[in-house]
């Protein structure tokens, strides 16, 4: 169950990527991506936010001085976004607030993708009882709304560190992804190069992870990005619920601050709320544009003539 449920194609239309000779498929993907406006915009957005969040803190420093007497000061030339409840510079907080979000998002997505690829590839390739079991399992896990499940887990067990958060989110999100991977593996399984490898008696490990999976590289990339959007949605949600570690500064905590402490209703607090929300929305938007464009590239049928 994904927060940003992928457009129909990710599951129903299984694109068949060509095995390329010469230019690496990822490079070709990249060049085609930059040719489409929405893909280019998406890529720029994501890169901009990543750069800001990774390099920004090195520039402005991670400690933010605050003078409570100047709480909620309006934006000025010195403080573009004004000051927040403890007198700290909102813009400064914004810049250093992205790191954790990105880190958790990408880490969780990586965990999800690795698990989903491993299980999906094996289930798709071997079929049989293992496959049936996995399908049943994913069916059941997908029934519970992801955020509710995460909220409950977060409530029962303390999520002490961002890494733990990423781990939990990552581990609980693999079912949906696994189905996509499995579908793709099922279609690739019938191709000649797999048959050839089988005849060569190469051993299933090499076939599955050496032949099939590399052929799905771009498809896996798309699903990885979708997993990132998913993870970010889940993570920010958990921060809002106060279930994620409230230490440090990140966009999620900023919004949680505003939400639970009533800053929402304070007109002066608007920049403090809107800023992190905007960052998250822009990030998600960029990621979604990327996935849409990548899907169109892989599956030309989707392109509007």
């Amino acid at each position: 169950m994904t927060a940003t449920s992928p457009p129909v194609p990710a599951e129903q239309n299984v694109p068949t990527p060509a095995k390329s000779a010469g230019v690496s498929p990822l490079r070709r993907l990249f060049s085609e991506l930059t040719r489409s406006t929405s893909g280019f915009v998406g890529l720029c957005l994501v890169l901009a936010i990543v750069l800001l969040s990774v390099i920004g803190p090195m520039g402005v420093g991670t400690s933010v001085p605050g003078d409570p007497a100047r709480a909620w000061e309006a934006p000025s030339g010195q403080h573009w976004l004004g000051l927040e409840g403890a007198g700290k510079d909102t813009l400064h907080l914004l810049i250093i607030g992205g790191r954790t979000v990105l880190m958790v998002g990408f880490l969780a997505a990586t965990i999800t993708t690795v698990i989903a690829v491993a299980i999906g590839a094996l289930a798709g390739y071997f079929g049989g009882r293992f496959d049936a079991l996995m399908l049943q399992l994913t069916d059941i896990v997908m029934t519970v709304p992801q955020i509710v499940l995460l909220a409950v887990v977060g409530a029962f067990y303390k999520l002490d560190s961002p890494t733990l958060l990423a781990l939990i989110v990552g581990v609980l999100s693999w079912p949906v992804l696994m189905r996509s991977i499995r579908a793709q593996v099922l279609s690739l399984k019938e191709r000649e190069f797999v048959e050839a490898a089988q005849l060569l008696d190469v051993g299933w490990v090499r076939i599955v992870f050496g032949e099939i999976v590399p052929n799905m590289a771009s498809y896996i990339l798309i699903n990885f990005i979708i997993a990132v959007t998913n993870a970010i949605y889940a993570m920010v949600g958990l921060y809002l619920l106060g279930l994620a570690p409230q230490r440090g500064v990140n966009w999620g905590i900023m919004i949680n601050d505003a939400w639970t402490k009533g800053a929402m209703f304070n007109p002066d607090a608007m920049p403090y709320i809107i800023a992190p929300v905007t960052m998250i929305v822009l990030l998600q938007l960029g990621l979604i544009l990327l996935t849409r464009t990548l899907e169109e590239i892989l599956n030309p049928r989707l392109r509007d003539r």
Partner: protein
Amino acid sequence: MAADAVTADAPPGTGAPDRPDRHVGESLGHRIYHSFILRRLVRSAFVIWVVATGVFLMVRLLPGNPVDVYINQQIALYGKSYEQAAAEAQNYFRFDPATPIWRQYLDYLWGLLHGDMGSSIATPGVTVTEKIAHYLPWTLYSVGLALVISITIGLLLGMIMAYRRGGIIDHAVSIIGSGFHAIPNYLLAILIVVVGAVQLGVIDYTRMRGNVSPGVSPELSFRFLSDIGYHATLPMITYILTTVGTWALIMKASTTQVLGEDYVTVARARGLKDSRIQTNYVGRNALLPLIAQIATQAGFIVGGAIFVEQTFSYEGVGLLLFESINTRDYPMIQGVLLVVTITVVLANLCADLVNAALDPRIRLGEGGAA
């Protein structure tokens, strides 16, 4: 194909059955249909059971589980003995932590079957079931109504987009849909409040929050119905805006595919009226993939309800869950999780049944040669 000559295409006069299979199959077909329902019911019950067991595992068996935490707390803070603490726990969780595990599990299941999910720790004296029963209808109302509106609008938009590809509506909905898709539903709710109410003042937040205006009593009257509609507007708008784009895109993809199918061309060749083709030939077939998505989207909306209801002070199970989490009211959390899951499972079941009703291939099984 060779079966053709042997079975179905027997030349006339060679004993073609007077009561064709279909009539015998009438009762057989009924049986299959019913067993389809039965099968789905059994499957749904199974899923619920698995989730309930999973919850039990989390609540009771994993290290650091809430029951142990509660008991230890009682012992540490109030100096109670283990037996006393366990007895208190039983009050809330409905199974006695001192008894063997299998006993606890059975008690737990037994309680569930009787609708007994324990008592609230945060509000003593109130059972979990009571409280949920009070909050659940509001969520079902707002989410359900929003889902219906969202699907209807999305459906119409999607069909228009498919018929007029590249047109204004196509581009507009794609862009706006993508935009809204990128906004997590909880953030949208916050934005609505911050921008709409606080900044712009167009939304009268204080009047619109909550479920119902003070002084309006629940009765089947226009006043009551319009009042709860008024209060449900903000949460519903949030749900609708975040999902309508998805529905439109799914419907567009589905309709586009159906429009390319042979039977649509044949329908035009047959000189059928356009209106008939659009509804019975294109519409009914394009709808099918949508139904499969209903349960997923419903689950997604219900998940978002946790935040949306909190933001708008709308007293549904989402708000309940949020509060329970804050107060660490474990029996309540557990109860809400189960109820939410059961709701989604039932939604799944309904979607499957509707699908079977609309698609004879599912209802009667993939046929092939009759």
